[in-house]
């Protein structure tokens, strides 16, 4: 079970949060110009790393605000929590075979 440090409310159990998947996906600025393949990429293709992931969470049973988390998907260690809109923090890559 994850203990997630909500930037607004402090550390809470994972059951209070909902998950938003991969972070830093920008909505296309000119959707009409996209090919089907580019749409598929935007809608369906996600990073699925065995190692460092940057992802979004929402404190559904608390402040109801979104924020970003950098986490290790193997050790489940939460490396840092940072606000929406912020640049992804510079962390050493983690990759497991």
């Amino acid at each position, binding site marked *: *079970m*994850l203990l997630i440090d909500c930037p607004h409310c402090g550390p809470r*159990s*994972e*059951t209070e949060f*909902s*998950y938003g*998947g991969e972070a830093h996906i920008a909505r296309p600025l000119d959707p009409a110009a996209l090919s*089907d*393949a580019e*749409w*598929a*990429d935007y*809608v*369906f*293709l*996600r990073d*699925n*790393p*065995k190692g460092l*992931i940057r*992802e979004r969470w929402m404190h559904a049973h608390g402040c109801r605000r979104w924020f970003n988390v950098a986490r290790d*998907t*193997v*050790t*489940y260690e939460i490396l840092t929590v940072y606000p929406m809109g912020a640049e992804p923090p510079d962390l050493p890559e983690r990759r*497991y*075979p």
Partner: protein
Amino acid sequence: MRLKRWFKAALHRRVAADTIQPETGIGRCGTTGWSEGAATGMNKRYSIFSLARNAFSRHENWQEAWRSPTPKPRYDAVIIGGGGHGLATAYYLAKQHGMTNIAVLERGWLGGGNTGRNTTIVRSNYLWDESAALYEQAMKLWEGLSRELNYNVMFSQRGVLNLAHNLHDLREIQRRVNANRLNGIDGEVLDAQQVKDFCPAIDLRAGGRYPVLGASLQRRGGTARHDAVAWGYARAADALGVDIIQECPVQGIRVADGKVQGVETARGYIETNKLGIVVAGHSSLLAEMAGFRLPVQSVPLQALVSEPVKPAINCVVMSGAVHAYISQSDKGELVIGAGVDKYVGYGQRGSQPVTEETVAAICEMFPIFRRMRMMRQWGGIVDVCPDASPIISKTPVEGIYINCGWGTGGFKATPGSGWAFAHTVARNEPHPLNAPFTLDRYRTGYLIDEHGAAAVAH
């Protein structure tokens, strides 16, 4: 008559106990005691006579079930992943398509992935025509599998119930059963009393927190023994000359001019121009090695088993709404499956709140199990597609084929998946059965959405 049936049943159990090796493991597949006949791919058949013969030598001279060959420098096809699907693919490649100069590369031991971690529910009552055809093909293969492989996979058609807890569930079940029957798949809608009659252990007295209004029943559904499926396919494929190589992780894929050249492994470089990737939760990693992306997300799915008890529950009971499913193994353990973690993860454990929710739901529906002790809990990493349907497809790289995205429910499909994937690999084109399950469907929009429709996530 009765006696005859009893004798037959007893015999069956005996064969089951003896043909199934006690432990998965690499040690067992070592070269010690390996006879010449076997080295040329000639397996001795299991039969009542071989059983009797071996009884005289205290079962100490059973032949190894498959060889442990050193990898050759080149194969006509290489399958990555020694789970049920990979091994079935290899078997059908050899059996149906005459491709015997092939290898299966497994990073750990056979069936050590989701195959050996799943709750073994087999059914084919999927909503959409595409899925129904694929899973029903698998069901038909299951029905003759022990005989086909000469290996008892303990396929038991004890019936699968999918419970309805509210009016909407009930209507959904009616719709699905109708769809199933139109596709020639058996299905019945039961009311609450019929559910109780079919599965007396369920508690319907007070309505409870999860009242049961009815259920769908697929009588041909049931369970099979998971590792026996992997071992049975491995042994049968080996007998046809397939090299099954364990402890051989693939670490890189060489591609030149958009075509596959071979794979880098912990045991050296292996050349091939046909590569099948069947690695479940690790699919994204292998795709990345080959230079393309997949729409799958890897999450742990967990299960747990209780201490063994006498027969208490005679069928499989699943509930989509409360996300719990239960059956009893032939050893007597209750086998309980849960839901997936809600976030990407590669830890083969599963999150504790998920366990808690599942067990709470089971206790509510089956108060007789409240005081059972749970013996083991574990997780497997399942690869979930956006439409909860698998991908059995060619890829952007020529000569690379992928079979993934089975998510929480691919065990039931093992024979059909291997059968269809073998066709795809051998002929470089999909069989009509798996033609809709392309990687390209996320671009064309032809999704096969089985999320809610497939009764539960399995």
